């Protein structure tokens, strides 16, 4: 391997691809492909009808174009909407049946699927291209009545739950990418926590795009029944390719009375090379519904990858006294672009929301915080606090803040503040005086800048995220 390529790999260590035989749907987007997907997943008729309804709707929708990062038009007919390793045509019953190549891939990514090898207590659902290949710790969770499986499995085994909640937060008709996902979604995780149960371990999904010319359309649905608690993690990587790949996921969270869902994401899709070639288009719709009283949904995201990140994890605070939180770090380097933020929609009385967003922009990157805080006239005594800080490194990059604040209730309070700055020479000088080189100093200062958000992550993730923050900014100083 040439030296240059070695260096490239060093930068993005998840950039390898696995050579594995695939089953693919025919190229293109049409009813036949949707039927193919539904068929291969052995879905019941109602699911296929649902997908086709979404497809019908999609024909009337236009791709939105209000976002800051512009991208060349995507040819939706030139994509594969389903791609799965041949060996998992029927989902393997146990890890012994799993293709060793897949196992090796996940080991390489640092995700041990063999339970005995795991030090920490995290159950993993591993999604490879369009299918879930393995789910760990299933037995232990089933004991408590917790359902943690792939969404395809849930459609077959728990149709009543899926029917009731799928599309209840993100309706079929929502917007272009969400509707596209509804029509062609392939796999993802399904979580149901029964009444009064506190999930004993972290649940997590690891998404991997492997095949080329494929879009990944995953769908995650998490339901926390009355008085339950769950913490869910999500990680993503993809091989280095010169083409741009589309990832359009839908994530729906539903928290009933007194329930709490904590959703953390460390997004490290391939960001493209340093000239902006390749990388993932990460157009994700994430929305949580605090349906019951005293419920709480908390989003934490560390966005370091993707050529374009375009997502707004939102909370609809419908139940009285419900709480929504959003903690975000978005780091863009080289030619990466991010347009991310949140929506906090206050409908219930005495609802509270908090938004902490940290944007870091380096190289030629563009980083936008866009958020909505909407207090409806019925949301008495609600409060919102928003803080958006941006850090700029160099004068070729951009940092933007576009908050929309609507307050229709005189007993509610909304406060928003935002700052933009750079790392001051004094801070750098102080660190170098203490013996740190410039890159270490920047890493330290940036980690301090992000601390408020990193603190929110579960411990194992926090350590990884901290490292990721440092790596993402390598080469941006000096």
């Amino acid at each position, binding site marked *: 391997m040439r030296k240059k390529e070695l260096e490239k790999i060093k930068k993005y260590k998840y950039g390898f691809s696995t050579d594995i035989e695939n089953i693919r749907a025919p190229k293109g987007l049409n009813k036949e492909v949707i039927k193919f997907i539904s068929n291969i997943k052995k879905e019941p008729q109602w699911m296929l009808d649902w997908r086709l309804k979404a497809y019908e709707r999609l024909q009337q929708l236009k791709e939105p174009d*209000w976002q800051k990062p512009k991208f060349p038009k995507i040819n939706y007919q030139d994509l594969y909407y389903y791609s799965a390793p041949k060996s998992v045509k029927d989902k393997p019953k146990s890890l012994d049946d799993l293709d060793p190549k897949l196992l090796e891939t996940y080991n390489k990514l640092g995700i041990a699927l063999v339970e005995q090898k795991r030090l920490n207590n995290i159950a993993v659902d591993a999604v490879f291209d369009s299918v879930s290949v393995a789910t760990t710790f299933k037995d232990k969770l089933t004991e408590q009545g917790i359902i943690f499986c792939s969404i395809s499995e849930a459609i077959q085994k728990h149709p009543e739950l899926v029917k009731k909640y799928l599309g209840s937060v993100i309706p079929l008709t929502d917007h272009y990418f969400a509707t596209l996902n509804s029509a062609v979604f392939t796999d993802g995780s399904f979580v149901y926590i029964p009444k009064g149960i506190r999930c004993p371990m972290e649940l997590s999904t690891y998404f991997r795009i492997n095949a080329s010319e494929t879009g990944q359309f995953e769908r995650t649905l998490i339901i926390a029944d009355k008085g339950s608690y769950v913490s869910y993690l999500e990680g993503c990587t993809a091989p280095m390719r010169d083409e741009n790949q589309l990832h359009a996921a839908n994530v729906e969270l539903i928290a009933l009375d007194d329930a709490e869902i904590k959703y953390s994401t460390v997004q490290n899709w391939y960001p493209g090379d340093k000239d902006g070639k390749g990388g993932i288009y990460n157009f994700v719709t994430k929305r949580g519904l605090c349906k019951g009283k005293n419920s709480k949904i908390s989003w934490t995201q560390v966005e370091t990858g993707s050529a374009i990140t375009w997502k707004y994890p939102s909370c609809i605070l419908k139940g009285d006294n419900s709480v929504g939180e959003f903690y975000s770090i978005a780091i863009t380097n080289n030619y990466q672009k991010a347009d991310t933020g949140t929506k906090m929609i206050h409908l219930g009385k005495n609802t509270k929301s908090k938004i902490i967003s940290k944007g870091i922009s380096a190289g030629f990157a563009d980083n936008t915080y866009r958020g909505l805080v909407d207090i409806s006239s019925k949301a008495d005594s609600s409060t919102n606090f928003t803080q958006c800080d941006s850090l700029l490194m160099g*004068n070729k990059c951009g940092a*933007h*803040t576009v908050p*929309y*604040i609507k307050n*229709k209730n005189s007993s509610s309070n909304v406060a928003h503040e935002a*700052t*933009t700055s750079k790392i001051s020479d004094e801070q750098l000088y102080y660190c170098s005086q203490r013996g740190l080189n410039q890159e270490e100093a920047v890493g330290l200062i940036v980690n301090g800048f992000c601390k408020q958000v990193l603190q929110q992550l579960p411990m194992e993730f926090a350590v990884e995220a901290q490292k990721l923050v440092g790596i993402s900014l390598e080469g941006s100083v000096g």
Partner: protein
Amino acid sequence: MEEQLKIDFDKVIQNLKSSKKDIEVRQKNLNEFIKNGFPNKRTEDWKFSDFNQIITSNIKGLKFFNNETKPGEFDQSIFVNNFTHNKIIFVNGLISMLDFNCEEKNKIEVIDTHETEDLNSKNPLIFLNNALKFNYIKLTIKENYSLNKPLIIYNITNNKLNSNTISQRIDFILKKNSSLKLINLFDDNSNNNFYNINYQFKIGKDAILKNYKIDSQLNSNIKYFFNNIDLEHNSLAETFIFSTGSKFIKNEINCNLNDQYSSAFINGIINLKNDQHHEIKTNINHLAKNTKSYQLVKSVLNNNSKGVYQGKIFVNSKAQKTDGYQLSKALLLDENTEFDAKPELEIYADDVKCSHGSTSGNLDEDVLFYAMSRGLNYQQSKKLLINGFLLDVVEKITDLEIKDLIKNIMENS
């Protein structure tokens, strides 16, 4: 509407006896407007104020041409007392009087023209203004001349005017090292009219503009003000907006800090009641190094009113050492009031100091309690707190004489 617009447009052209070139430009602007129509909430800039809906629900049978082509009479008692000043008086949108008695004659040049120049804009209301404007004044202040006294522009309407459009355009050219203090006053005795006023300011090197816009009388008119301010090296523009009178007002300010050490200050008060709806929208473009901008907007909203603040700070990658600040605070005093804000930053330079803040909510109960425990009743305490809240903005006015004048107007309104 389109039919009426075309008929009235022909009347405007006939009455002005326009040149061929002028007609061409006006026609082009009219076509652009017809293509776009009145902006609605699908237009990003009008997201919180659906102008099309506001104008159609408030004004029935909107006309675009005033049949009385001579300005009417006006009552001289509206002039501000004990305050020597220069005057420009518009009655029903037509120029009635120009009075620069306090100034040296050859230092100020006023040209009353109507020849249209195309403006580089995509705003449909500016197209409309360009197509229909009747009076177009170019006011130039010569180099090194500071006006002795402020200039007050009175906009008077009488009850003969109804469901009409008033389109006005004034260009202010401040040459090197000159200065102007400008006050806009409105005396509305009419109802259901649509004001569309476009001011263009060109502020030369070292020049100073102080611009105060006061709309304090309750009336049912709809007003759209567009100010474009271009600032050169070391120049300064201060804008103060007092927005309480009309049914709907949108004050839009576009400010270009084109050269080093130029600065812009925009302060505003929105104080509303009874179904009023006012908006302040600013767009500050930092285009050169070492420029500064400061914005403070405070709103007080009473029963059923709606206030909107949209502010944007744009920093070009060349504009290092920019200092940009933006603060919006709103008090929602009654149910059914609404305050929407979109404070926006778009920054492409790293060595900058930019921040914004926005809050909205009711009066702090603890503070009210404190005031009442000192012997004030509830109403008095509330009034005290609201006054204090708003005076904060008035105190930013740098001209003492005008500050007193505005405090006076505030007390009486």
